[in-house]
């Protein structure tokens, strides 16, 4: 056990919480009064005059606390790295939280290689996005409120990744869901934003329902919800027959339901595209880089359990692959720049699940990391474009922006190359690792490879379509918008540039052995994470070794093939959106049904609305109007009426007020009845 600087681990989540408190005070007592309708017209308050000083303070506090959290996290990870690989686990118990009988769940944090990767990605990318937000939200009136939510998100997300038990993870899990709700609905005056926030929360809760049930099964099986105890007991209990494969399958499938909700997988992905109603930096942070990857983290964290349930693994792999290709096809026809990226995110998350499903947890987490870089960059870049275009998000009204916003263009282009899987860029290494494992792992299959490779081709296609439509060709902007086009301020371009560097070189952390081995370059990423998965389940290491049986030539051949498919996608995009720009419309006219179905996202939202939402609401209305009001109350009122009319008749017989007599009569009757009943039952 290492300690020292590690004793400051609690600061990592605590610092953002401090930001919440400080900015919360500013938001409630300084900003809210300025925003009230009574305070006058908006121009008087927004960002000018005496309001400006508190904004500067907010703009320092919010990124500051996250930056500090990053530094602390980095120091902790470095200190952890100093320990030998097997000793890289540190648990800090703060206080008991929920305790009842044998059940106990403390507030305790655990730093190990897996949670340190997550913590660094979350705080690092999070910090950059906070800085970016200062510029992006500079025209926003509710500036402090925005940063309160954003810091609160960081707090919840760090609880999620640093928790040392499932229950505390669940706190972060629902906490990020809350922040997502608040931030998607940040512009709550807009109906669609408020709707989208609610949808996100409710769909996430469907997943949380699974997580909750999984937790109950875990506790009643293992007698604990702490990772260390559960994973240590898993092989023992499965050995003595307590933990049957069926039970393990039930636990992991329920967990996967939770993961599918949070990470927007089929069938629960529908909330993520709508989540684009939130401010763009939020889309980058929550709906691309961090929160939506929580499901992947949860599965990787629970690898010891998942590996005991082969059926679940297959479900995870198949759902992942299906989601990857399904949402990639939707991405082809979207015209809103952020929606393309949203479906792309769903698709990329599918890859991560595919990796987990074939037992390649390291590859999944590696893709999670590179994806955090390039997808955050893509979203922030699109935000910079939207910012430059005074809020325009429709790619049909863009074009030719290459020279007008050069930094944005260059950085976004780098990210596009990364996601398209061009060799040398980060996405290439991580995606290729997944493709290879989906083929070679003992749990993989050539079919999975084909689907994933096809999805990679489609990804390259829609991403280059996005780039061509946005930055190349002639301008299709409104003249009024075009006048105001400007490159973004440094607070925005600097994070873009840093993320661009990471998107380009990030992949070298995890060079596959087949490429790096010959030059003596180790796969750093795998080396770092490997002890976690080996400790969790020795079987996992076994599955990874399986891959070694395949020849290097096959691996390189498949790699070349997937690059070829990506290049084909790029070529097709060039053909349709640069060379023959009239073609796409022609195609759409030629196959109106196919185009319509894809354009309308396969009518899945409409189907849910019809099959679930409307039926539930109607059923509930029937319950209320018919069952409650007519049936039950009918009986109650009917009984009361009978008594009343009987009482009326009796009263006519008697005349005067006999309350006193009546009461003693009743009391006597009750006594008598009680005694008789007692006698008759007992004797």
């Amino acid at each position, binding site marked *: 056990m290492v300690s020292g600087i590690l004793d400051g681990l609690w600061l990592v989540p605590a610092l953002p919480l401090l930001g919440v408190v400080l900015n919360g005070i500013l938001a409630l007592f300084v900003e809210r009064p300025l925003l009230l309708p009574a305070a006058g017209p908006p121009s008087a308050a927004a960002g000018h005059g005496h309001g400006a000083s508190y904004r500067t303070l907010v703009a320092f506090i919010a990124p500051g606390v996250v930056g500090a959290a990053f530094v602390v996290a980095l120091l902790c990870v470095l200190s952890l790295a100093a320990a030998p690989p097997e000793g890289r686990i540190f648990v800090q118990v703060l206080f008991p939280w929920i305790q*009842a009988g044998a059940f106990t769940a403390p507030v305790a944090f655990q730093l190990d290689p897996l949670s340190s990767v997550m913590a660094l990605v979350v705080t690092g990318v999070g910090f950059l996005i906070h800085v970016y937000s200062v510029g992006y939200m500079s025209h926003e009136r509710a500036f402090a409120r925005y940063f309160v939510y954003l810091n609160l998100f960081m707090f919840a997300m760090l609880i999620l990744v640093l928790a040392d038990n499932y229950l505390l993870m669940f*706190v972060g899990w629902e906490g990020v869901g809350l922040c997502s709700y608040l931030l998607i609905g940040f512009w709550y005056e807009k109906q669609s934003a408020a709707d989208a926030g609610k949808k996100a929360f409710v769909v996430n809760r469907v997943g949380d*329902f699974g997580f909750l049930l999984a937790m109950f099964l875990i506790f009643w099986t293992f007698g604990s919800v702490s990772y260390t105890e559960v994973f240590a007991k898993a092989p023992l209990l499965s050995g003595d027959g307590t933990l049957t494969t069926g039970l393990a399958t039930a636990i992991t499938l329920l967990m996967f339901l939770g993961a599918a909700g949070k990470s927007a997988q089929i069938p629960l992905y529908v909330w993520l595209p709508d989540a684009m109603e939130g401010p763009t930096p939020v889309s980058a942070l929550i709906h691309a880089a961090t929160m939506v990857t929580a499901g992947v983290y949860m599965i990787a964290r629970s690898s010891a359990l998942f590996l005991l349930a082969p059926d679940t693994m297959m479900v995870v792999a198949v759902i992942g692959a299906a989601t990857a290709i399904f949402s990639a096809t939707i991405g082809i026809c979207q015209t809103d720049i952020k929606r393309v990226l949203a479906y792309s995110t769903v698709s990329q998350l599918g890859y991560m699940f595919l990796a987990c499903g074939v037992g390649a947890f390291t590859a999944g987490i590696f893709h999670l990391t590179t994806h955090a870089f390039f997808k955050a960059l893509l979203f922030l870049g699109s935000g910079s474009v939207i910012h430059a275009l005074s809020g325009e998000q429709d790619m049909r009204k863009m074009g030719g922006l290459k020279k007008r916003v050069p930094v944005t263009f260059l950085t976004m282009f780098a990210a596009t190359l990364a996601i398209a899987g061009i060799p040398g860029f980060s996405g290439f290494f991580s995606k290729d690792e997944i493709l290879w494992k989906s083929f070679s792992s003992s749990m993989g299959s050539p079919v999975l490879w084909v689907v994933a490779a096809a999805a990679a081709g489609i990804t390259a296609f829609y991403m280059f379509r996005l780039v061509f439509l946005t930055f190349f060709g002639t301008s299709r902007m409104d003249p009024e918008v075009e006048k105001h086009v400007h490159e973004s301020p440094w607070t925005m371009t600097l994070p873009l540039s840093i993320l661009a560097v990471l998107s380009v070189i990030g992949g070298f952390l995890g060079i596959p052995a087949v490429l790096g081995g010959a030059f003596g370059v180790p796969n750093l990423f795998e080396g770092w994470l490997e002890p976690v998965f080996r400790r969790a389940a020795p079987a996992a290491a076994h599955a990874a070794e399986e891959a070694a049986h395949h020849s290097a030539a096959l691996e390189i051949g498949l790699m070349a093939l997937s690059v070829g498919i990506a290049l084909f996608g790029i070529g097709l995009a060039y053909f349709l959106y640069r060379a023959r720009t009239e073609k796409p419309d022609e195609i759409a006219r030629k196959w109106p049904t196919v185009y319509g179905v894809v354009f309308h996202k396969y009518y899945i939202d409409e189907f849910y609305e019809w099959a679930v939402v409307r039926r539930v609401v109607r059923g509930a209305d029937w319950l209320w109007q018919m069952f409650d009001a007519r049936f039950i109350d009918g009986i109650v009122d009917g009984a009361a009426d009978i008594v009343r009319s009987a009482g009326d008749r009796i009263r006519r017989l008697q005349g005067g007020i006999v309350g006193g007599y009546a009461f003693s009569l009743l009391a006597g009757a009750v006594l008598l009845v009680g005694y008789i009943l*007692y006698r008759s039952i007992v004797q």
Partner: protein
Amino acid sequence: MTGIDLLDRHLLSVLIGLPTAGAAALLFFPRDGRKAIRNAAFLVTLAEFLLSLLVVARFESGTAAMQLAESAPWLPQYGIGYLVGVDGISLWLLMLTTFIMPITILSAWSAVERHVKEFMVFMLILETAMVGVFVAIDLFLFYVFWELVLIPMYFLIGVWGGERRIYAAIKFFLYTFVGSVLMLVAILVLYFHHYAVAGFYTTDLLKLYELAIPAKLQFWLFAAFFLAFAFKVPMFPFHTWLPDAHVEAPTAGSVILAAVLLKMGTYGFLRFSMALFPAAAADFTPLIATLAVIGIVYGALVSMVQKDIKKLVAYSSVSHLGFVMLGLFAGNLQGIEGGILQMINHGVSTGALFLIVGIVYERRHTRLISEFGGLSKVVPVFAFCFMVVTLSSIGLPGTNGFVGEFLILLGAFRTHMGLTVVAASGVILAAVYMLWMFQRVMFGKVTNEENLRLRDMNGREIAYMLPLLVLVFWIGVYPQPFLRRMDATVHAFVARVEAGKRAALAEAPPGRTMFTRTFDARK
């Protein structure tokens, strides 16, 4: 004997007596001195709360015995005594009662303009009755307090209520009174049975606990108690008095009704039904757990389609109380502690929700959801409080609601797995109905001109809301002080119920439920 000693020795009696003494003093206040009346009522309830803190201070968490117990002969010839005490089951319900009273008095500050004196007198008498219900450990004494609660509540709804207040008040009265009469019959049967077995009359609950009651008799007694308590909780399908009572009651009445009165039912199940008739309880468990789960889902669904905010909150209570019942009838430590904690949580969260509704109602004189929209913009402090309370109501981790619901479901999962899966779906539905309502009231554009001029919460309103918000987070983040004081009692309770169940079941062939035994035996 010093004053402090005297107080210590008779703390519970002082808590019972103080509000009524206050009510008696109020009678001498001039009728038009409303301000003085309000101040006095507030000070009495505040003093009561501060005194009740002494109960927590004196409470030993290591023992399951009745603490701060007092006993005095009352009608010795009938074996009826004045016996009071607290244990880990009643402690927090007592505290909830004394805690919520000053808050409700403050909430009625400007909402109640008519007959202020009578209003406050009834409120204080009500407090005496409620405290009495939770500390009485004599069956007869309990029954007296139980009935005493009805009277002031009847008047609070009937006099200070809304348009259909008479209908609601009578419905409330009849529903609960029918239940009470059945309970009285059962109490008498129990009373005579004790005499037959032990040779002397008593209504001392602790003595009755030791009584071995034949399984068949347990069945009927449980059934009679069941109706009384199930009406009060209220359990599905006996819940229809609740929405009417809530909608018509003045805000203060609704808060007390939700926070304390409903808990009398769930408390009754623990203290009497389960503890006195463990074998019957075991046999009724499938039925009760099923009704509880139906209540969870049914209450949530019906909440979803309500047009009146207050009615929505009322139906949500049916759902929340379903959780409590499920926890209690899980029969294990987690479920019961979760159930008790959730009683408190429901008091805090739903109490706060009714206060929120009251704040809006006082300003707009309507509670129709469609009348609102976009309020977040106009009343930020209110929006913040409303949001926190909403999240607590849907059981977000970090708030009180989560801790209770989690323990309940955890416990119930062990004993009723299938039902718990259905119950857990209530977690989804809660998010649907609460967030949908919140969105329609708070989000969007301000569509109604009148809402633009809405005043935000004033100092008094913030003052009474704040303690509730503190509790939301306190119980949510650090529930230890609450849970640990229940441990010993709940442990002993579970053990006794288990033992009682086993003893009674030993008579019957294994694997047969009470229903089959009872009806076979009649042949």
